[in-house]
Every structure is written in structure tokens, then in C-alpha cells.
């Protein structure tokens, strides 16, 4: 009896060990999301992949932006780390990791799975822009535009959405006269106020000059529209942003917007879910910032496979599942209005705001990205500093343009 128990126990142990040996782990590192819908979508990805691949254990690790970047950097300096990692697509963000050799070239997987035919054209913009090979698979493509509080617009006597920059300034003036701050921004996170500067630069400089400035091919100090954009930023900060804003972050700013303390926010299409979870969606509407160029302001986010992944094929399977028509339909609307999958269309049952977003995407003539995606990291850090100096009233517009160029010129 005792022998039988021992044999049985040993067999059970062997089976358990055998099972453990067969089990595969797939680690995905991404960001913390504040929206419940986005968290649920990631949980769904984990569950679905495990369901499709019995024996595979998917672990999705979520961190704050800075912690994510730091963890990625630390982990990739060693032999441990994720199989798949999230990073924005810009040269100064995802590009840094590609340049450092952390990202696996996905050319073979693009061919095998036909991802190029599946995903939307704007979201592919950076895949081949990092240098040789193809890096990252589109995770989402997002646009940024002006959300406004219908009630506050009405209160200020604004009857139509501004179509030009001049009309937007006039609307802000009306709001101010009615005692309503036009915009709310959070200054502590740098990139929030940066959005305003980005769209102002597009407005004052136009497509080619804007791209030349952010591409560091044009001289900021001698390009008049650069100083003009800083001048406009100063004007908005002084006159039309809910103050004080330099000491609050984007979440605090969102709370102020949702509690009717300011009329507008410059946010991405993900904000629809944020509003839905904190206020009544019908009280808000959205329109593109009237830059006059008709380009969509937005950025792409990618999932990259780490070149340290012990199982890149399994990681590629995960990316394939994530952008598949089936799964994208399942999580429709969680990450924004536009799915990276061309086949996936939002239905008629979605909020009105998403329908507007669909129009914004459809009417866009090209795209331009956020400054922190366009610049290398050191320039981004200086760009933040200069923007904040101007927004705080401590730096004059021309001095800001000079400082920007001085930093770029001294880079080594």
C-alpha cells in the first residue's frame, strides 16, 4: 500500500514536472491604463491567447510611463526582460530601442502573417522608418483633437465649432468674457502642454516648415513661424488656460474638465472612454484643432518583439492575434475610435463622439506626430523645458526659438 502510494506519488510528480516543462511563458510589458475599458481589453488579450494556446501562460505587466521605460532599459541590459514590449512609434521613443538593437526585425513575420495588408496605412508609418528591417506591429493609432463642453460653449454664446484658427481664438475670447477658462492643461507631465505647442507650430508654419523644424533640418532661430508659434503659446497660456496649471498633472486637468471648470481639452480619441467613465458623454463633442493644414494630429503605438525573447515565434503569434479582425472586433472602441485593423469598423451603437472621430480620421490629409515622437529624447527634454518656460511667462518667444536652436546646434 505504502509502495503503491510512493509509486503513485512519484508518477504524479513526474507528470507535474512534465507539464511544467511543456508550459510556455509569454511576458508582455505595457503601460498602466486609467480607463477600465483598456484594462479589460488587455485582460481579454491575455485570456484569449491562453485559450488559443493551451499550456501557454501570458503575463501582461503594466507600469507607469517612466517606470516602464526604466524597467525596459534595465531589463534589456541583462538577459531577462519581456518577449513583447509596448512603445510609441516615434523615432525618439520606439526608435531609440530599435537603434540600440533591442527590437527584433519582424520582416519575416510581416510576410508570414500578411500584417501589411491587414493594418491601416497611418499606423504603418514608422514600421520601416527606423532603419533596416521592419520593427514593431501596430497596437493602436490615435488622433488628438479638441474636446469641448457643449453647455459651456452655449453659455458663452458660441453656436458653431470653429473652422479656422482665428475662429478658435474668437471662441476662446467669448469664453473668457463669460468667465470660463477656454482650456485646461496639466503642466507637470510636460507632454500635455506640448500638444498645444505642436498644433500651434503646425498652424503657424504649415506642413513643410513644421516637418523641417521637428526634423531639425530648419533653423528654429531664423524661422519666423517658430517664434510666432511660441508667441501664440504665450498668448494661450496667459489668457485662455485655466490657471494655475503648471503644478497639476493631466489627470487633475481631466477632473477639472469633467467638472465643468474649463471648456476644452486637447486630448486623444482614448478620452471618449475617460469621459464615459466620469461624466455624461452627450455633454461633450470633439473637432480637430483648426491648424489650416487638415493633417491629423496623432501618433502610433506599437508592440515590439524583444530580440532577447526566448520564443519570438510565440510572441509573433500574440501580435497576430492582437491585430486580428476577430480580436479587434472583440475590443472595439477600447483604445480609441480607429482600430489598427482595416476590416474593423465601429458599429452604429457607438457613442456619437466616436462617429465624429471616424469622420476626423476619414477627412485627414496626412498626419503629424507629437513633438516627443518626432525628436530624439534629449531634444524632447529641452523642448519640454522651453515650452514650460514660455507657458510660465519666464521666456520670450524669440528667446525660446533661439534656445531651441542653440540646443540642437550643440548636440554631439
Amino acid at each position: 500500500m505504502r509502495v503503491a502510494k510512493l509509486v503513485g506519488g512519484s508518477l504524479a510528480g513526474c507528470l507535474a514536472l512534465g507539464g511544467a516543462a511543456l508550459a510556455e511563458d509569454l511576458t508582455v510589458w505595457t503601460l498602466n491604463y486609467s480607463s477600465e475599458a483598456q484594462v479589460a481589453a488587455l485582460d481579454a488579450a491575455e485570456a484569449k491567447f491562453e485559450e488559443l494556446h493551451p499550456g501557454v501562460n501570458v503575463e501582461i505587466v503594466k507600469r507607469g510611463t517612466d517606470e516602464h521605460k526604466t524597467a525596459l532599459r534595465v531589463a534589456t541590459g541583462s538577459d531577462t526582460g519581456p518577449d513583447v514590449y509596448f512603445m510609441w512609434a516615434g523615432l525618439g521613443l520606439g526608435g531609440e530601442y530599435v537603434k540600440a538593437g533591442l527590437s527584433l526585425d519582424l520582416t519575416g513575420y510581416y510576410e508570414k502573417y500578411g500584417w501589411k495588408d491587414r493594418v491601416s496605412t497611418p499606423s504603418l508609418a514608422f514600421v520601416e522608418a527606423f532603419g533596416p528591417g521592419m520593427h514593431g506591429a501596430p497596437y493602436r493609432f490615435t488622433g488628438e483633437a479638441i474636446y469641448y463642453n457643449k453647455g459651456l460653449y452655449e453659455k458663452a454664446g458660441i453656436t458653431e465649432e470653429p473652422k479656422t484658427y482665428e475662429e478658435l481664438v474668437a471662441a476662446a475670447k467669448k469664453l473668457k468674457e463669460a468667465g470660463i477658462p477656454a482650456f485646461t492643461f496639466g503642466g507637470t507631465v510636460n507632454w500635455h502642454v506640448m500638444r498645444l505647442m505642436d498644433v500651434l507650430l503646425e498652424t503657424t508654419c504649415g506642413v513643410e516648415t513644421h516637418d523641417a523644424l521637428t526634423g531639425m533640418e530648419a533653423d528654429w532661430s531664423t524661422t519666423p513661424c517658430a517664434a510666432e508659434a511660441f508667441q501664440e503659446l504665450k498668448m494661450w497660456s496667459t489668457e485662455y488656460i485655466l490657471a494655475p496649471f503648471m503644478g497639476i498633472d493631466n489627470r487633475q486637468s481631466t477632473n477639472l474638465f469633467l467638472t465643468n471648470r474649463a471648456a476644452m481639452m486637447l486630448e486623444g480619441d482614448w478620452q471618449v472612454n475617460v469621459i464615459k467613465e466620469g461624466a455624461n458623454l452627450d455633454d461633450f463633442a470633439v473637432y480637430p484643432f483648426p491648424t489650416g493644414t487638415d493633417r491629423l494630429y496623432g501618433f502610433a503605438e506599437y508592440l515590439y518583439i524583444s530580440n532577447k525573447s526566448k520564443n519570438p515565434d510565440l510572441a509573433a503569434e500574440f501580435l497576430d492575434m492582437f491585430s486580428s479582425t476577430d480580436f479587434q472586433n472583440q475590443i472595439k472602441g477600447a483604445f480609441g475610435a480607429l482600430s489598427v485593423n482595416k476590416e474593423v469598423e465601429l458599429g452604429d451603437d457607438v457613442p456619437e463622439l466616436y462617429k465624429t472621430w471616424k469622420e476626423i480620421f476619414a477627412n485627414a490629409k496626412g498626419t503629424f506626430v507629437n513633438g516627443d515622437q518626432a525628436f530624439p529624447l534629449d531634444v524632447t527634454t529641452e523642448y519640454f523645458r522651453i515650452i514650460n518656460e514660455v507657458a510660465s511667462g519666464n521666456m520670450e518667444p524669440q528667446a525660446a526659438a533661439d534656445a531651441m536652436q542653440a540646443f540642437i546646434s550643440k548636440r554631439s
Partner: protein
Amino acid sequence: MFHTAYLKTPRAQALILLVPAFGAYTVFAIWPMIDVVILSFQRWNGLSADRLWVGLDNYRHIFTHDPVYWIAFNNTVIWTILSVIFPPFVGLLLALGLNEKLFARGTMRAIYYLPVIIAPIAVATMWRWMYDPFFGLFNQVMTSFGLQSWIQDWLGDRDVALYSMFVAFTWQNVGFSMVLFLAGLQNVDRSLVEAARIDGAGRWQVFRHVTLPALQVTVTIVIVLSTISSLKAFDIVYGMTGGGPAQSTQMLALWAFTQSMQIFDFGRGSAISVTLLLITLAVVVPYLRWSQKREEAAR
């Protein structure tokens, strides 16, 4: 000829006990420090296998081209001066008060010490909410007392933000100084205090001529530890302002971290760290020597 008898000597046994700890200390503390110094003469993005030797370029860059380095340097100096004065001074006052026989003395000591055991990042979050210009405690209290003119953008105004952070830092660190001074006060000879009082010395004279000289060693320890901890101020700044607005509250330790871990320029980050190390040594070593001489002279 090696004798086993040698192993039984106190010196050998001390060495045996010290070797494992020294080995760990070398691997995890001394070597990283040496590596940071080496790295400060190299260019490295933290990922590639290659480290490019660039000589003094990183130092040249941070001293002449970096628009933030000197802001961080000045802030670090201001922060250190304030840290050496205020938390120890308040801590000493609290220690003197709580050294007397008071009702609930133990509870009060615990209450004042409590902030020390809270993680600095939690302290930062807590104070950030208290400083919130719209919903924060401070501005709401001021509003309810009709002191709207005193309301500030505590963390968003470059003229105020550094000092707002310092208040939170003081709140957290006062208890640490207090405990050290309380320990020091236990060494004050009661008979000397009583003798001085019999001779007609007042409270201030007793403190000035009896208590304070007896606290000399404690004062040295508190000042050295305050200096070191303030020079490497990081987490509270990271959590409260992130160095903003517009880098106006940036500190050398945080700027070194930003260069290395966010801009991925480990060479420049290390160069900033090395300057911070040199500043720390330049401040602490002379002070320690001076106080040692004073102690020797007093014996």
C-alpha cells in the same frame, strides 16, 4: 609557514568575519562606484555592447552646454543649506521638549517620528494633493480663513516650488534628527546640569554651556547625515515636481537619473553623478576633520 594557531587570533577571526561582507560590499557598492567614474569618460546608451571612450567630453558638455546642470547645481546647494539648518534645528527643539517629563511623551515621540518611516514617494504624493491649487488642503484652509491673497501655485510657480517641496522634506526628516538628539541628550551628565543650576545658571546658560557641548558628537552626526541625504535628494523631487516647472526644481541626483534612465545618455548621467560625489566629499570630509579636531581639543 602558516600556522593554524594564527586562525585563532582576534585579528584573523575579525578578517574571517569581514571578508564575506567586504566581498559583497565590493561587488555591490565599490565596483559600481568605480564603474560610474569610468562611465563618465565614455559614451554609452545603456544597451549596446560598445562603450565609446570620449575623455572629458561629458564633463565639458554638462558644464558648458547643458542648460539644466547649473540650475540643478544651484538648487542642490540651496536644498543642502536649508536641510542642514531647518530639520536639525526643529529636531533639536523637539528633542529638548520631549526629553522633559511630559504627559504622553512616548506617544508624542512616536508621532513626530512617524513620517520618517513613510516612503518618500508616498510623502510626495500626499503633499502633492495637499498642495493641489484647486482641491488641495492648503488653499481650501486659506480660503476658509479669508486668506485668498496667500494662495499660491505651490508646485507650479518656480519661485515657490522648491520651498514647497522643502516643507514636505522637513516634515518627513525632523523626526530623524529628533531621535538622534534624544539619544545624545541621554549622554548629558545630569550632575553637571544640576551643578550649573545650583550655581545660578538659567535655562539658556545650562543649554549653552552644558547641554550643547555634550551634544557635539550628535550635532556632527546629524549635520553629516543631513548633508549627505540632502545632496542626493531624489525621490521627493521626483514624486512632487519631477524637476519642474521647466526644470526649475531640478536637482543633481534627479538630473543624473534623467540623463541616464530617461534620455539614455549614461556617460553624461555618470559625469553628473561624479560631480555630485566630489561635492559631497568636498563638503563632508573637511567638516568631519574639523569636528574631529574640536573633539580632540575638548578632551
